[in-house]
């Protein structure tokens, strides 16, 4: 197989690069296992924690390599890309986490619960509607947070026949499973049940368990409910995140992009300081391209692998960078040094192999070193901006 550009990894970085390149007319393929950290994203993207000055980041940080002066243009480009995909994201809104903690985000999907969206409705009385037997949604914690914002909150819960059948196998009551079984008829039933609960409310808050069968459903439930309805994120796997991933994949393929799914790259052939082709664990054929982007993610996505004594990039054996000293902080909720380990790359994001930059191989997203996307809240920003920065040059 031969493509203009091949992207290794189908997460936010890979899809952003893929969409950008396909839109420019490149014959593009994405090789993806199918897992993505987006599946755990609650529908809000972070660029950089507001307490951190972008100019104070280390020279090796992806934002420093992009150049602080280029960031704004790229964020606009990212917002437009999402918009073209049919996803309307709102800028600089404050989200409420499942446990009721308030966080400000660069971009939040319209329809998710934010302080600003709620305020815009003029609501005073809220009803937070949960689902019987669904344990990944905490109305009481959300109520507690909203009461601090000055709202009156009532907590209630509903069920439907379909949900009751799902619950007969108690380990199936996860957000993703619920979302999968909701049909158009179920949506009507849900809307009816919610309306019955919310006669005294100005606005409704409901768990984000709609949208796996399409963004239309996500919007339709809001339309069918008689009061303004906002989705609040659930814990663990995120239906909203999966929906966003699905939409981005659809956009990529509609632009002519090829998804090579359910497989991972196991080796690469290098010649004359270039990557000429890769092989995967499922295809007999090698995959050739003029340019490759490695966007395979961090440890969780298996883009990086931690051995007892060192960190490696398992697909192509590329150079990695690891901070000195202990890699783990004893407080899991404090910045973890291992987060900064990752792929070594030159100022243009070219991957290093035996300390030499590979001409046509770039690294994007969470696989890159020198960024702690967790404590910086920069994961989505790094994914999209590095992907666009690289794609713009190809």
């Amino acid at each position, binding site marked *: 197989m031969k493509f203009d550009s091949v992207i290794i990894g189908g997460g936010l970085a890979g899809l952003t690069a893929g969409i950008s390149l396909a839109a420019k007319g490149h014959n593009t393929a994405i090789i993806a296992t199918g897992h993505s950290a987006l599946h*755990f994203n609650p529908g809000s993207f972070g660029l950089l924690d507001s307490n951190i000055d972008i100019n104070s980041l280390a020279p090796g940080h992806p934002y420093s390599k992009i150049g602080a002066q280029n960031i704004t243009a790229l964020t606009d480009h990212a917002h437009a890309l999402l918009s073209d995909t049919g996803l309307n994201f709102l800028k600089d809104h404050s989200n409420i986490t499942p446990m009721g*903690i308030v966080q400000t985000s660069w971009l939040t999907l319209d329809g998710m619960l934010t302080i600003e969206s709620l305020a815009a409705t003029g609501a005073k009385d809220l009803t937070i509607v949960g689902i019987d*037997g669904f344990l990944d949604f905490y109305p009481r914690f959300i109520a507690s947070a909203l009461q601090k914002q000055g709202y009156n909150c009532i907590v209630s819960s509903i069920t439907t026949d379909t949900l009751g059948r799902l619950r007969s196998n108690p380990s199936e009551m996860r957000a993703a499973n619920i979302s999968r079984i909701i049909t158009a008829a179920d949506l009507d039933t849900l809307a009816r049940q919610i309306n019955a609960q919310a006669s005294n409310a100005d606005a409704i808050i409901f768990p984000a368990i709609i949208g796996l069968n399409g963004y239309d459903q996500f919007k339709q439930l809001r339309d069918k409910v008689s009061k303004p309805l906002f989705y609040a994120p659930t*814990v663990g796997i995120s239906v909203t995140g999966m929906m966003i991933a699905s939409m981005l994949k659809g956009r990529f393929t509609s632009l002519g992009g090829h998804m090579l799914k359910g497989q991972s790259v196991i080796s690469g052939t290098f010649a004359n300081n270039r990557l000429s082709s890769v092989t995967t664990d499922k295809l007999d054929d090698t995959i050739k391209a003029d340019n490759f982007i490695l966007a395979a993610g961090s440890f*969780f996505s*298996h883009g990086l692998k*931690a051995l007892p004594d060192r960190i490696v990039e398992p697909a192509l054996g590329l150079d990695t960078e690891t901070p000195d000293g202990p890699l783990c902080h*004893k407080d*899991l909720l404090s910045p973890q040094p291992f987060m900064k380990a990752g792929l070594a790359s030159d100022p243009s994001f070219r991957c290093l192999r035996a300390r030499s930059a590979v001409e046509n191989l770039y690294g994007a997203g969470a696989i890159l070193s020198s960024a702690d996307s967790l404590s910086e809240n920069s994961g989505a920003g790094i994914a999209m901006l590095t992907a666009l920065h690289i794609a713009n040059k190809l």
Partner: protein
Amino acid sequence: MNPIKHYDVIVIGGGATGAGTARDCALRGLKVLLVERHDFSSGATGRNHGLLHSGARYAVTDQESATECIKENMTLRRIASHCVEETGGLFITLPEDDLAYQQTFIDACRKAGIEADAIDPGLARRLEPSVNPSIIGAVKVPDGSIDPFRLTTANVIDAQIHGADILTHHEVTDFIRSADRIEGIVMTDSLTGQTLRATADVTVNAAGIWGHLIAQKAGVTVKMFPAKGALLVFGHRVNNIVINRCRKPANADILVPGDTVCVIGTTSDRVDFDSIDNMEVTPGEVDILLREGIKLAPSLATTRILRAYAGVRPLVASDNDPSGRSISRGIVCLDHASRDGLEGFITITGGKLMTYRLMAQWATDMVCRKLGRPEIKCSTASLPLPGSDLTPKAVKTLHTVAQKAAKGRHGNLADNIPAATDTDRSMVCECENVSAGEINYAIDRLHIQSLEGLRRRTRLGMGTCQGQLCICRAAALLEAHNPCAQRHLDQIASFVNERWKGIRPVAWGDALSEAQLTAWIYGHQLGLNQLKTTTESNEI
């Protein structure tokens, strides 16, 4: 000032020994108070192998211990059947070991009353496929595995049923004394900060290694040396039969299956008293545990390590050697009246998890003698613990995996777990099959107030996800009983870091990937990294 309650006996320490002693006292009709500074099984009881020794390990070097062990092994199978898994054990000889030792070993076992039979290595491999295929010898013995949390809880429940008072989260800060007699204790409720007092005719020091400090507070010296033992839990039950090395006891030569995991251990290193409340497993310890473990079962090399942990054994100095170089083997039961001229105080220490019942018997016999009632006899060897009752009950059909799992954890008491509604049956911990009904049962009937307590009672968070997905679910249920969002957020942070402590020494491979996801879920998704809680868990 609260009225001071008077008891026949106060037992300090909520591990297996203390709980067992409280049970024995209560069964003999004594009014007893059990006091525990944290939660049950926080000390060595909750930090060992979970091995139901056959005693074979000691047969060659310590016949007395071996004989004690096999008797208690058989007793516990009867009275604590719901805490015991009758796995059987193998003592294997590897090419690098001396095969001649095997006969010495078998003879010593038989002399101690332990059934020991040499079997063909080929048969051993068929019985236990995970065993090192290069074994040149194998001996079958009646080892088993035991759940120390269930065991301790069952003792506490029985003590309560027979009238005992139980106080957890109460630390003994001082003694009430008069001249040459201990009259009672002063304690602080660590949850409210309140000071309380209680008096008793006899006080029993059953505080494990902390017994050294309790004795000091009482004004006597019981010289103990903390001996740290590190262990690794694997995320998979690799073996079904306990695998031991057939050689003189050494480090890391026992692999014990338990529920869905297996445990390799252990090591033995002297440590200082100031580290016993905050043990960290070192890279050197992880190294030796893995290296030696792989010799017992080679597939451990590619098995995910769930966590590393360490416990502290009390090594008790022989009374006739004040230098402390000679360590007392076996159980130590001291009457401080005859030893130190201090009335009303005894110490029970040494021993092993699985001789807890015998230790409790000795302590309670001594208590009864001191109370002038030596005629009341111990019945703990014959009376089954709650959960292991043998009285026929209506057979309840178990419908779900969760019900079966709960039955495994609570024995017949699982019948009390609500399972009527969909909400009761909804799954909180999917790895260990803990339902909302079981969580609510633990909160309502087992007096659990914290996530750590739930972990000990129900195995919540002890499975392959190490609490990654289930802790918030449980926290929400706890909060519904006890509204206070902030307190539960602090508890979640605390719980997550306690699990992390055990993962850090093995933070590579799957352990690191999962930790990264956990950090994302709790730090960012839930937003706890904004809380700036500097919670060092004060529960061990």
